[in-house]
């Protein structure tokens, strides 16, 4: 099967420049700098029809348009290597095993959009990937693939590698800029958009590691070739990360548009220990928890959105029939409560409210109106949170209420956990649980509305 981003990772010393170049590395950059204008490169990306791999699927070529038209110098490429979405690890594998592919992609993006500086912002916990990328940058400078007059052309670019320090929100496209500027990683209001006023107030192109890593092949083989690698109307290949209760967890680079059934059962070896599938998630913590009967869903941005959730990072998490969905939902709820940056009320308080409500369900002390309250709080958060974190945080919770209603009824009414996982001990959480909706809380506090 065709591979693009993960083609070289099993080669000996794949992270080394010699190995990379022996397997066709930096040939795309040579081609771009000697045979193509920046707009030729842009044109191939347009033909590829690639949607960004950072979660939103925004068309990469369109994002590049904004930058080409933006005023201000210098312009920056910001490579988003913050990868912190639970269930997602494709960027880490590229950084650890094929860091030069990422560098080549970054330089191609800079060339096409007229940027003279590249920043790679990598999450602080990726120690090995950091070392590998750092070493690769030194090698790339030594070989003249970075710096002044690259490969004898009149194109020059500097690349800086920067480390985060533990904060999921710093993957959000404006928070990452604040973090790089040495501030707390709060998101910024948009507009102004990063393409006009981004890092240090200058036009900034922000792309995900995997988006950038696809560029060399798009340039070498053409955008149309790349687009045709997809199936079911999908464009190109996509790295699906599979984890949880499967026989073979791992990163699978497959045609965009592969179904969940094929991914989980053919590639990831099916549910472990010969158990049945109970639930799964298409795209990390921020996506809904779906029932087994939705397995034929096509895993591409649009079809997953049409099904009421998001493909996000394509971090597919699989749960077997011994799993309790309330117990699963509370893990995601805890994640968002921990990672909420605290900047806005609906998310700061809402993430805590949702986790506390689930805590009551787990302990068998949830009042009968709990499911309604989860629906209300979720709607308030989705509508009024300042950034994507708070807007998507309720999905794992509210989706379990909708898709696995009988399990909630068992916990709340019969005081039983059907999977036998939850403590159901009748113990009230030792924190106060506010049973008002977020809207009511805010009105009581400030006399104002949420949004």
């Amino acid at each position, binding site marked *: 099967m065709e591979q693009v981003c993960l083609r070289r990772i099993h080669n000996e010393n794949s992270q080394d420049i010699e190995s990379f170049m022996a397997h066709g590395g930096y040939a795309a950059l040579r081609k771009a700098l000697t045979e193509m204008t920046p707009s030729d490169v842009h044109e191939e990306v347009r033909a590829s029809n690639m949607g960004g791999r950072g979660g939103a699927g925004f068309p990469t070529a369109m994002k590049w348009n904004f930058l080409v038209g933006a005023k201000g110098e210098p312009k920056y490429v910001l490579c988003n290597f913050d*990868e*912190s*979405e*639970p*269930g*997602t*690890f494709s*960027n*880490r594998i590229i950084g650890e095993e094929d860091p030069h592919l990422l560098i080549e992609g970054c330089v191609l993006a800079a060339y096409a959009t007229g940027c003279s500086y590249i*920043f790679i912002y990598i*999450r*602080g*916990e*990726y*120690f*090995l990937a950091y070392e590998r990328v750092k070493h690769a940058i030194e090698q790339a400078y030594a070989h003249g693939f970075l710096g002044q007059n690259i490969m004898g052309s009149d194109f020059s670019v500097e690349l*800086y590698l*920067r*480390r*985060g*320090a*533990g*904060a*999921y929100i710093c993957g959000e496209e404006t928070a990452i800029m604040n*973090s*790089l*500027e*040495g*501030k*707390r*990683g709060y998101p910024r209001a948009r507009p102004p958009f990063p393409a006009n006023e981004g*890092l*240090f107030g200058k036009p900034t192109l922000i792309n995900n590691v995997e988006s950038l890593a696809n560029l060399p092949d798009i340039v070498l083989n053409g955008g149309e070739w790349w687009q045709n690698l997809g199936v079911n109307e999908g464009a190109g290949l996509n790295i699906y*990360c*599979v*984890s*949880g*209760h499967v026989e073979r*967890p*791992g*990163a699978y680079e497959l045609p965009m548009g592969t179904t969940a059934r094929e991914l989980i059962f053919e590639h990831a070896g099916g549910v472990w220990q010969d158990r049945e599938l109970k639930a799964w*998630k298409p795209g990390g*913590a921020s996506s809904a928890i779906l029932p087994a009967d939705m397995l034929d869903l096509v895993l591409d941005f649009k079809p997953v959105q049409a099904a009421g959730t998001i493909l996000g990072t394509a*971090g597919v*998490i699989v*749960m077997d029939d011994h*799993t309790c969905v309330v117990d*699963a939902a509370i*893990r*995601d709820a*805890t*994640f968002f409560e*921990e*990672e909420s*940056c605290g900047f806005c009320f609906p998310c700061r308080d809402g993430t805590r409210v949702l986790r506390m409500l689930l805590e009551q369900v787990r302990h068998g002390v949830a009042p009968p109106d709990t499911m309604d309250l989860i629906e209300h709080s979720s709607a308030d958060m989705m509508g009024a949170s300042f950034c994507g974190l708070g807007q998507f945080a309720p999905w794992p919770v509210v989706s379990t209420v909708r898709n696995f209603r009988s399990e909630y009824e068992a916990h709340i009414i019969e005081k039983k956990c059907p999977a036998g996982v939850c403590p159901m001990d009748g113990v009230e959480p030792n924190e106060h649980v506010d049973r008002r909706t977020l809207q009511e809380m805010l009105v009581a506090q400030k006399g104002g509305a949420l949004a």
Partner: protein
Amino acid sequence: MATQSGEVESVEAAKYAALQVEIEECKAEPGTTLDMLHAVQRQFGYLEPRAVGMVADALGITKAQLYGVATFYTMFFFEPKPPVIARVCVNLSCHLRGAQDILHTLEAAATADRSGFEVEEVMCLGLCEQAPALLVNEVAVGQVSAAEALERVQASVAACNEGG
């Protein structure tokens, strides 16, 4: 005694000097605030106050402003730590494969006398295909039982003790 405390002082002085060199290098490039703080933590094991002051001076901001930034991020420590930190992921993929066992086993061992390590519950480490996963200092450890995880942590503690 006098020579011993003299040695300690010179070791400390060397750390500040090495840090100053790193700070100067960082200062020459844009966007390096967090890198400077990482450098402090590498030298001292935590954000040692005098060293934080050196970074603040280099950036031309107050220590209070810099602490305001540093406290936003979970990887920075504000008090001295044992030589080994075990960061155990407790998110969904790891939870499904036994993260709680690892957490409880390590926590029980860490509270024992002179264990030499500390356990942190952390959010997804991006090692989900190796679940259950943890970081022992900077090293990723995955697909382990609770007992194996504890062995890895104790081996790391032993290595630190030998190293001085």
